[in-house]
């Protein structure tokens, strides 16, 4: 029933005389709407734009924009005038060449498209150094660096080469006439033809003194080897032949003595069946910093540099001498274990050391010689380090004293990379003549009178001798982008020769290297071996005085300087790929930092904090070495030896770098006298540093289904069911394997026909080197997002290498701790404790990319079906279909999907290589560059598998195993990643799929991935 009641909401309403209220009641809106908003400008200015107006504007402008966008752009196509015979648009060409920048050496293949190099690959046929590390993979981007020098300069002004020659020749002649010495400072250049050219040059200008300068020195090892084996070189090692590897501070999976050992090491790490029993090498690592090598070791014993020397002496004594060395109890037990293993292995044992001390290095040689180690190859030593510290220091002294007339620096930057750079800078300015050969402006070139712009190595000719009789050739893969000339060509011209470097190489090779072999073949292959059997040298170690091993007292803190996997000696600091490359151990990009042990950090009040959004912050420390003090951010590093701190080279450069790349502090300032170990004092400083760390959770917390691992003994004695447990699920109170079709809720795809791609990753042979990460970047046009974005966890790496620490001393211990938790209260406490890594944790690496699940959770939640499943096992991602809901990323158990939060190309906010024409030349034309608002992820390099299939169809051939590759499996020199067709029953990957060690990541989720892992087996006694 209707009622006559009057409802009121304001007392004034009851007053019928209230005119204002009446007016309000009549009108819908309190104030009149502006109606003439478009016709009357004044009214428009006065009026406050209403919501309606706003909608009108939006509607109008959207419609206008839509209509304007209907017209497509006119695209021009410019063919060659005369097309080179070997170039066919759309078909890549490969060239074999060689990188030798004084720090990294290797035989590589360069993939070029339409004449521009786009990717570096290892040269698998090359017998020596045929593997490319992360830096070599990234070096292709340095070719397209916008900050490269465009031409020669004299006194800060651009000049022509003719003018340059005129001026420099006059200077050289004047100095030669007055017989003033000129220092020719070069990096290690094991190039037969270059050495000839330099000799010729010196014969023309006898006042020139050549000095070889390794930025990071291996002087002690060189001196030692020279003393006992008569050649200034470094003994080579083949770890694949080793059963016991003892390393005392030698980061041989990193840059120790030039690196390049991971392939051989990985071979020895795979448990191979031998007479029904699996065997693998056992690796002991005594070190102060947590290195990549240490992380891979079976036994890692953190110890100070002083202790390392004691251990080395102790091992020597126990193995060879009769004197009983002294050692502290804890170290002794570990050292004894190592000695026992060495003794047991006999000639299959090897000992290496990175201690920068001549006597220590001599001990290493003596021990290996005594063991008659098969892994030790002194008869074919490496020539990739030649630096002579004594000569360099003398030269620096002479420059500073002003007793020399000039300095020619070739590809080295002593002002930046020496401890007293500022003094050197002043002295070089005072010199009568200074000439710097460099491809980019740097601190030394800046103060030099003349700068000779040199080409990138991919634009250059060159020949190298890595080991006696092992030659390599470098050839240009692109014409010089800028007006540059090679150092050798300049020397030839200055020496008054008319021939070019290329002619000289060819002539020299034909004369004295190739013999009857073909030059064209050598150039095609990129290498040439002509090993003549060397006379065996039997060194005499009887005079070796172990007592002379200087053992500094271990009071106070020691700083141990090291080179990082990504940055190396810092030559490529302007390379955004390397800057964003997360360090394998710390997982931090865009920085260097002082690594310090947990207990030392606590004592000094240094902290690492996770901020509200999870990003990592660290305290600053003021670090003093001698008279130099630097303010350095601190990272608390599990596994760092107490009493030591670590700092990496290569950062802190300012010149020739874009603003974003000017990161970190310059560790060379502490590199006094080329000693990597320095006494240091550390104090807490103000402020907090913001790190860009990509992994914020460091421990595995006993989650055994992520990384499965076992020990060799269990692997040999127990069933697979014991050490590689298949998760179970209960159905009608019966337990089934999760992979059983009985408990599967999904419809199975039929994959029996055609190809079924699988990728196997062996956790035993993966060293975490990160070459795959950079190769993936290059192949798939992965954008660089910058430090700020990485800090927000928006890194775009399609492939990441997770690094886990154990919170107990072993991962096995973690599992036990987790299993023994009882009750909620206990679990909270225990899990809290388990988040902290141990002081000396076990470490495991796990490369994770899209797992290409056969039952993919991402596919079911995509509202627009942008991600779907292919019959060949790949999980497809159609970027043009994606609307960016990010449901897929949220539903992915592996967190491998990456979202484009911004437009990363042609955007000044992200001023990396994709923001300029030059940098964009590195992009792979077969892979689309993704735009903003689109989800992306690993495609299992479908462009590569499709290419392989097409090539087979064109040739009408059956595809053989090994033809299918992905960028990561191709870059994996250690053979940890194997890719192939599971339906090819004879393939390697099919065998690995049936291997007992095979498991899938998070098997219990039931996603049935097409990426599999092989259980990590540690060769330790502990259970």
């Amino acid at each position, binding site marked *: 029933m209707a009622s006559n009641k009057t409802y009121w909401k304001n007392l004034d309403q009851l007053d019928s005389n209230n005119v204002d209220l009446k007016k309000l009641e009549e009108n819908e809106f309190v104030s009149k709407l502006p109606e003439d908003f478009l016709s009357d400008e004044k009214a428009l200015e006065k009026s406050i734009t209403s919501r309606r107006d706003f909608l009108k504007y939006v509607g109008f402008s959207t419609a206008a924009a839509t209509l304007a966008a209907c017209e497509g752009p006119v695209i021009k196509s410019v*063919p060659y005038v005369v097309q080179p015979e070997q170039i066919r648009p759309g078909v890549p060409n490969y060239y074999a060449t060689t990188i030798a920048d004084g720090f990294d050496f290797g035989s590589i293949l360069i993939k070029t498209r339409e004449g521009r190099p786009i990717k570096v690959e290892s040269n698998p046929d090359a017998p020596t150094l045929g593997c490319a590390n992360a830096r070599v993979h990234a070096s292709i981007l340095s070719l397209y660096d916008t900050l490269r020098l465009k031409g020669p300069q004299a006194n800060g002004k651009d000049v022509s080469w003719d003018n340059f020659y005129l001026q420099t020749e006059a200077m050289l002649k004047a100095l030669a006439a007055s017989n003033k010495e000129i220092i020719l400072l070069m990096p290690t250049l094991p190039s037969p033809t270059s050495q000839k050219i330099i000799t010729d040059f010196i014969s023309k200008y006898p006042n020139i003194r050549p000095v070889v300068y390794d930025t990071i020195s291996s002087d002690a090892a060189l001196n030692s080897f020279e003393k006992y084996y008569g050649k200034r070189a470094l003994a080579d090692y083949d770890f694949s032949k080793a059963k016991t590897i003892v390393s005392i501070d030698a980061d041989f999976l990193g840059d120790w003595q030039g690196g390049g050992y991971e392939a051989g090491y990985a071979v020895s790490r795979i448990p191979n069946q031998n007479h029904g029993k699996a065997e693998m090498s056992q690796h002991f690592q005594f070190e102060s910093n947590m290195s990549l090598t240490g992380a891979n070791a079976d036994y890692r014993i953190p110890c100070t540099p002083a202790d390392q020397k004691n251990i080395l002496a102790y091992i020597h004594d126990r193995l060879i001498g009769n004197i009983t060395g002294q050692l502290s109890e804890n170290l002794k037990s570990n050292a004894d274990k190592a000695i026992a293993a060495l003794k047991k292995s006999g000639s299959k044992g090897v000992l290496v050391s990175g201690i920068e001390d001549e006597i220590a290095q001599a001990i290493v040689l003596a021990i290996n010689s005594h063991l008659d180690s098969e892994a030790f190859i002194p008869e074919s030593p490496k020539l990739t380090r030649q630096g002579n510290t004594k000569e360099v220091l003398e030269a620096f002294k002479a420059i500073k004293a002003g007793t020399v007339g000039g300095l020619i620096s070739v590809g080295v930057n002593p002002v930046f990379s020496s401890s007293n750079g500022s003094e050197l800078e002043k002295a070089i300015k005072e010199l009568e003549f200074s000439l710097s050969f460099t491809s980019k402006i740097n601190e030394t070139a800046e103060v030099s009178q003349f700068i000779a712009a040199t080409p990138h190595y991919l634009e250059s000719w060159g020949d190298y001798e890595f080991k006696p009789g092992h030659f390599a050739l470098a050839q240009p893969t692109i014409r010089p982008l800028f007006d540059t000339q090679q150092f050798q060509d300049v020397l030839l011209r200055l020496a008054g020769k008319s021939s070019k470097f290329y002619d000289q190489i060819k002539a020299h090779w034909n004369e004295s290297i190739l013999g009857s072999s073909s030059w064209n073949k050598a150039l095609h292959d990129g290498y040439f071996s002509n090993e003549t059997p060397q006379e065996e040298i039997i060194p005499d170690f009887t005079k070796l005085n172990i007592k002379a091993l200087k053992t500094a007292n271990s009071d106070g803190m020691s700083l141990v300087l090291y080179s990082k996997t990504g940055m190396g000696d810092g030559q490529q600091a302007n390379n955004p790929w390397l800057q964003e490359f997360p360090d394998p151990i710390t997982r931090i990009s865009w920085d260097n930092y002082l690594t310090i042990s947990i207990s030392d950090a606590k004592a000094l009040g240094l902290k690492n904090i996770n901020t509200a959004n999870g990003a990592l912050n660290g305290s600053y420390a003021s670090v003093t070495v001698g008279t130099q003090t630097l303010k350095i951010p601190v990272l608390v590093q599990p596994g760092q030896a107490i009493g030591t701190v670590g700092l990496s080279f290569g950062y802190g450069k300012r010149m020739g770098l874009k603003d974003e790349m000017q990161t970190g502090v310059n560790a060379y300032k502490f590199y006094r006298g080329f000693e990597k170990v320095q006494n240091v004092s550390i104090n807490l400083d103000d402020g907090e540093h913001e790190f860009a760390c990509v992994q914020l959770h460091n421990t595995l917390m006993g989650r055994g289904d992520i990384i499965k691992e076992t020990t060799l003994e269990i692997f040999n004695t127990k069933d697979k069911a014991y050490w590689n447990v298949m998760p179970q699920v209960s159905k009608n109170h019966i337990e089934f394997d999760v992979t059983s079709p009985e408990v599967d809720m999904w419809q199975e795809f039929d994959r029996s026909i*055609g190809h079924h791609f699988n990728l196997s990753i062996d956790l035993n042979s993966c060293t975490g080197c990160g070459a795959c990460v950079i190769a993936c970047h290059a192949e798939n046009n992965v954008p660089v997002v910058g430090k700020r974005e990485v800090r927000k966890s928006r890194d775009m790496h399609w492939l990441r290498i997770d690094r886990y620490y154990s919170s107990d001393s072993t991962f096995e211990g973690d599992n036990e701790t987790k299993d023994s938790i009882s009750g909620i209260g206990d679990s909270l406490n225990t899990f809290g404790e388990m988040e902290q890594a141990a002081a000396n944790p076990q470490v495991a690496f796990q490369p994770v990319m899209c797992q290409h699940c056969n039952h993919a959770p991402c596919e079911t939640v995509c509202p627009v079906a942008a991600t*779907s499943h292919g019959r060949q096992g790949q999980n497809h991602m159609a970027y043009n279909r994606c609307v960016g809901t990010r449901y897929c990323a949220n539903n992915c158990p592996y967190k491998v999907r990456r979202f484009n939060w911004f437009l990363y190309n042609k955007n000044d906010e992200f001023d990396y290589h994709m923001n300029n024409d030059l940098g964009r030349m590195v992009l792979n034309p077969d892979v689309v560059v993704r735009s903003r608002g689109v989800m992306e992820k690993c495609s299992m390099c479908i462009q590569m598998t499709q290419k392989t299939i097409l090539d087979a169809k064109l040739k009408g051939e059956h595809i053989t195993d090994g033809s299918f590759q992905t960028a990561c499996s191709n870059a994996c020199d250690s053979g940890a990643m194997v890719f192939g067709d599971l339906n090819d029953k004879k393939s390697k990957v099919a065998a690995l799929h049936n291997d007992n060690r095979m498991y899938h990541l998070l098997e219990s989720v039931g996603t049935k991935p097409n990426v599999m892992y092989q259980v990590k087996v540690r060769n330790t006694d502990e259970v």
Partner: protein
Amino acid sequence: MDKVTNSIKRNILITRLKSFFLPFIILISVLLTQKIVAQEVVIADNSAAVQAGKKLFNANCAACHKLNKRAVGPALKGVSAKYDKEWLYTWIKNSTAMVKSGDAQAVAIYEEYNGSVMTSFPQLSNLDIDNILAYTDYIPPAPVATVKAVGSSTSQMSGAGVSNTLILIALSLVFAILVTMLFLVQRTLMRIAKLSGVDITPQVKPKRTPIWLAFVQNQFLVMTSVILLLLSSAYFVYGFFMQVGVDQGYMPVQPIHYSHEIHAGANQIECKYCHSSARVSKHSGIPSLNVCMNCHQNIAEYNGEEDLENGYTKDFYTKEIKKLYAAVGWDEENQRYTGETEPVKWVRIHNLPDFVYFNHAQHVEVGEITCQKCHGPVEEMEIMYQYSPLTMGWCINCHRETNVKVESNEYYLKIHEALSKKYGVEKLTVAQMGGLECGKCHY
């Protein structure tokens, strides 16, 4: 698109009109052929040697020599006047030996042509050479006849152009006659009616509701038509938006007027002769200019059919060939490359978005699909245009319908067998081979 249909319509119109004027055309051509025949007869009369010489010239010499113009070798008109006949015999049979022997004339000519060696023709007899020389010396007589022939051919050619206006005039005349006739007939009828006393004043009809009012009053009709109107407009709006970005019929003006009709049609050059990378690469490739010069080094002027209506005269085409020479840096005068090049900036017609991967080799070589399947009747295109819509629906449809060429391809051997068993069919479509999967084209 419009342009295409228009031109098609125009062609149809012209053919129809031509059939109307066929008798005239036949007449004219009969006259013309008679003239040409007459001319040929003149040559034949002149000398059998010239005829034989012409044959030999075309077979052996024409690749490098022209009559009136310098090509790879010198122009040969009146060559016998310049050199001794015996000298010519030796030269033609073995020029290299002559140069080597240091013959002054031989060396001079060798050097003038930058040391390019003339092919030796030991198979030619002295008589053959005499015939060739007769041909090169021959000056075609009867310029009067030629002029006449040219004149008549012009009248024939322009006949089509004149006829259009003629027809229009004729048609309008016919119309005018018809209208007058109608008017006259009506007047006569009126007169007859008047005379026979028939009342011809129009009857007054009872007033009815106008149809529009009836329509407005009928609500059902209004509703139905509004719905229909909305539906049809929605259909057209949808149609409009779906063709945004679809450039079917895109026919841009190119920097050089390159006629596929002449090259692929009239001269029947294989598509993949120029677009050779279609065999091996994802790109079909726009041929580089050196490929053009394979033929155009010798073809400096156009001598084919003309299309006067569109202004495609011989001169027009010859000028386009000169554009090529300018771009590639070919000095016609001296028959050598100057080295000054100017790459041609063609306008790309078939533009696939970046997110689509398309491979020509896959379709052309493996699938053995003809180029025309997607690019249309290129051999009939005077100006190249986009024939297919290049939309995803269009790709997918073809993948659904096309069978994969599995025969004699080792790669497919096992897969085909297994898949045939699975689907129970002998032939397999691309779709059944997985050709509809997103990731096959989008990565």
